[in-house]
């Protein structure tokens, strides 16, 4: 292996509790199978990276955990996805409550066209918090957690669209943090950002992992190696269904992969 990055020490993180898991999970878009028989545990307070070539179902997989796939018509799920032992695909699950617990940050920064303050306050307001002082506290706390406070402290009332791309993405992270989630899903959160902004987000992720469970989809091998504790390598089968090839501690996946296909991928032989 010759990935030129230093692997962080991950001993502490990997022996956590299992927070979410999938069991024999398959997902279909109509008759097309996008994911096949995926069984995997997401560790608490760890960063789990989902890597693999384009079209292997990484994003689809991520969107299982907050049921964002529900928005697409014709999606069918088999098997189970559990949060703390409860199958979130059960009929009586409140999807709104689930999404409050399992927040999501998207590929393209998507701040709402409103002020910085209102962006962060948006979630709490929807959940019934309307007291201005409480909201101000939440906004400040969330922006600090997202390492954005110092940069926007004096422009809280300005449009969020005026911020730089990296700031916008941290704002979106703050927006998610403001509703006090337990799990944060990140769908290629740095793919629209420059390298400096990317590193800032990675630092932020490492800090957040102390109190949150994070699952991140990334195209960037270095990013997965640098920032994650656990890595899951996905690939497509011949019918284009995504499968889980290998899953384990990031250090092992990147230095001593058990599967030939993983090795080929991370050394850049395909994908």
């Amino acid at each position, binding site marked *: 292996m010759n990935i030129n990055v230093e692997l962080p020490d991950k001993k502490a993180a990997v022996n956590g509790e299992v927070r979410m898991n999938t069991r024999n999970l398959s997902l279909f878009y109509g008759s097309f199978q996008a994911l096949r028989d995926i069984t995997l545990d997401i560790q608490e307070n760890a960063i789990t990276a989902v890597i693999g070539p384009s079209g292997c179902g990484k994003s689809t997989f991520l969107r299982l955990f907050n049921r*964002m796939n529900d928005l697409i*018509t014709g999606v069918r799920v088999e098997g189970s996805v559990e949060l703390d032992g409860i199958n979130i695909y059960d009929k009586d699950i409140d999807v*709104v409550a689930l999404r*409050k617990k399992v927040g999501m940050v998207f590929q393209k920064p998507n*701040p709402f066209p409103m002020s910085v303050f209102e962006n962060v306050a948006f979630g709490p307001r*929807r959940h019934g918090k309307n007291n201005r002082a409480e909201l101000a506290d939440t906004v400040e706390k969330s922006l600090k957690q997202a390492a954005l406070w110092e940069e926007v402290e004096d422009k809280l009332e300005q*449009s969020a669209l005026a911020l730089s791309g990296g700031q916008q993405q941290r704002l979106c992270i703050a927006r998610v943090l403001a*509703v006090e989630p337990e799990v944060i899903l990140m769908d290629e959160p740095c793919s629209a950002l420059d390298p400096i902004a990317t590193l800032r987000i990675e630092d932020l992720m490492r800090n957040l992992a102390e109190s949150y469970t994070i699952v991140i989809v990334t195209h960037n091998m270095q990013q997965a190696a640098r920032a994650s504790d656990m890595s899951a390598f996905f690939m497509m089968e011949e019918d284009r269904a995504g499968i889980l090839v290998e899953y384990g501690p990031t250090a092992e996946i990147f230095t001593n992969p058990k599967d030939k296909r993983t090795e080929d991928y991370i050394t850049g032989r395909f994908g």
Partner: protein
Amino acid sequence: MLTVAPRQVSQQVAFGLLIVATAIVVVPVIVIILQIIINGGGAITWDFLTQPPAQAGKAGGIFPAILGTFYLMLGTIIVALPIGVLAGVYLSEYARENWFTRTVNMAIVNLAGVPSIVYGLFGLGIFVLAFHFGMSLLSASLTLACQALAMTVTTSREAILAVPREYREGSLAVGSTKWQTIRHIVLPQAMPGIITGAVLAMSRAAGETAPILVVGAAFFLPALPQSPFDQFMALPYHLYTVAAHIPGMPKTTIWGVALVLLVVVLSFNVLATIIRLRARKRRYST
């Protein structure tokens, strides 16, 4: 070697034709507006705008017709806007593709294509006679609202669909309900488009003559309407009557009525454009 090839000549010819065709589009508009201003400008006085007509419209002003037209626009939009927005939200956010939504969509397309006099007869049959609203502002507003619905539903739906998916996802991802997302993200974003459609629908209602003819417009009334159940005067109908049915009508007065009607309609179109431009500017500026 560097001489002009035939294909370049044909390019020049095609280009010229395109420009001429485009210029022709502008000509009627300019001619109509200039003609009306030149011929009718002289009729516009303070009294013309604020006094009731006298001597079958040959003297006095057209205030009751102006007021009636504004009442009509108001009545039309009060009915057509809420229904249009709610239907637009349903069609774009909730409706699944089935026979019901297909029927609704087909109805909307046909609603827009029905000749306006047919709306008038429909209003006469339903509102005036069946509902006993009589020949009145109410009947006329409801009739014009039916006609305006096609536009308010369509523009609302388009404006709602144009709200980026990223915004909806961002809202849902923090645990908002679908309705909260519509209420706090989608509708505010779509509002300029919705308002633009509403204003255009109003300006069209202001210009309609045929439908109101049979549901309550009068050429002359001794008093201004006091309730929605009263008859009313309206600019387009007034224009039609003074131009076609009153012998010895001063030409300036006819053009003057046309000018006032044109200003009312155009100012609403301009208003719609301003709303749209301001919304666009706000969205992209920092």
